């Protein structure tokens, strides 16, 4: 599963200075409890937002915007567009928070998926050269991909293990597709291989991944 409490970025010198310079009680248990607290808190915010609670929405934004902005930037490769996607995402959260089901996904994963789907929509629209209005007309309200029920949210250790069983190339392509929003044609062009080759690399990778995850 995706832990809400992200590890600090590498440039967070303050922390590395602390941990190297003096002994602090970086208790693992404390971290675990805090992660589950954070998850419960975010879930509570989402439930409150679904009832139109603006201050819960503000708190939710404060807690999650940096993670979601990171995801949008990674996908859009462009600050202005990433910011638009971030806005769209939170506007969707405001309207559709009732679609969140704490039994099926962690709040931060649900939000991350929403952000990613908004970003992907925009990327694909761009690649199709569609006019925004036309594209918007084609996307039905409540596109199910945006609210997809998450069944069996994966344990991250397990996913990492299974990704490691793939060959390096397939692993890199899968990661890049998911996080950078690269499509088959993008990946094929980047690697300088025919489209069909790229498809078979990734399809084989996905098959192996499923086999490993379902073991």
């Amino acid at each position: 599963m995706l832990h809400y409490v992200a590890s600090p970025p590498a440039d967070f010198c303050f922390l590395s200075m602390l941990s190297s310079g003096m002994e602090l009680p970086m208790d693992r248990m404390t971290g675990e409890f805090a992660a589950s607290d954070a998850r419960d808190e975010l879930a509570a915010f989402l439930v409150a937002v679904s009832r139109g609670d603006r201050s819960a929405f503000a708190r939710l934004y404060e807690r999650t915007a940096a993670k979601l902005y990171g995801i949008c930037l990674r996908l859009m490769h462009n600050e202005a567009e990433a910011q638009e996607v971030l806005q769209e995402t939170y506007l969707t959260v405001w309207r559709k928070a009732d679609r969140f089901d704490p039994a099926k996904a962690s709040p931060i994963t649900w939000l991350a998926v929403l952000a990613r789907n908004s970003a992907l929509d925009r990327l694909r629209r761009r690649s199709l050269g569609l006019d925004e209005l036309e594209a918007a007309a084609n996307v039905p309200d409540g596109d199910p991909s945006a609210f997809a029920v998450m069944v069996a949210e994966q344990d991250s250790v397990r996913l990492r293990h299974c990704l490691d069983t793939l060959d390096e190339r397939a692993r890199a392509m899968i990661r890049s597709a998911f996080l950078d929003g690269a499509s088959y044609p993008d990946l094929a062009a980047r690697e300088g291989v025919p489209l069909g080759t790229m498809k078979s690399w990734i399809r084989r990778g996905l098959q192996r991944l499923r086999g490993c995850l379902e073991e």
Partner: protein
Amino acid sequence: MTDTPPLDPEMRELAAEHALGVLSGEDLAKARELELTDERFRAEVARWTGRLSPLFDEVDEVAAPPSIWAVIQRRIGATASNDNLVELNNKVATWRAVAGGMTAIAASLAIALVWTLPGTQLTPEPVQRQSAPAPMVAMLDDQGQGTKVMASWDPAAQQLVLAVSGDLKADPSHSHELWVIPKGGKPSSLGMMPSTKQMHMRLAETLARLLENGATIAISVEPRGGSPTGSPTGPVIASGALTQA
């Protein structure tokens, strides 16, 4: 109740590809259509999304520009009473652990902090000025209640970092709002504190100008979401003057 046949392998593959996000053109259109019409397909896409979601762990947090929240608030029809001019970046658990050790080391940290401010990767390099303004610190005192808040301000990068040792009393119906009060001036809001332990933000130019030597930094208790008037309305629970580090 009818038995639904399992998804055939080709459709399963398409669902995996759709969750991964690699489809384009006709295949993408087909996957979207199936998502709307076929519950099994939708479930398979969701299952794959769940499988791949730990990859989000690899994405670094990046503080969003403050203007975003203002726009969102406007678009949901909230009163723009307190435009959040701060970037809020919360790393709760780590900081909970760190804050325990804060008091003893706060003083030595004050100087180190301002030189090692965490920058966001997309922050443009600050413009080099003829003589870079000196970093400043403020120790916010709560009149002996046992809480200390250390603020450090790097004018060149327009970055403000706050670290709290001890506990700022928090209750669900109130927020902590941060203020700057220039010498002889009126308080201006720097935004809400996202947690009671730490905050890290970049300030807009108009606010950054107020953080000068001798200005007071203060925290007040306000209704959830911030002061309704734009000035502090609740008790000030900690304050201190900015001085050059």
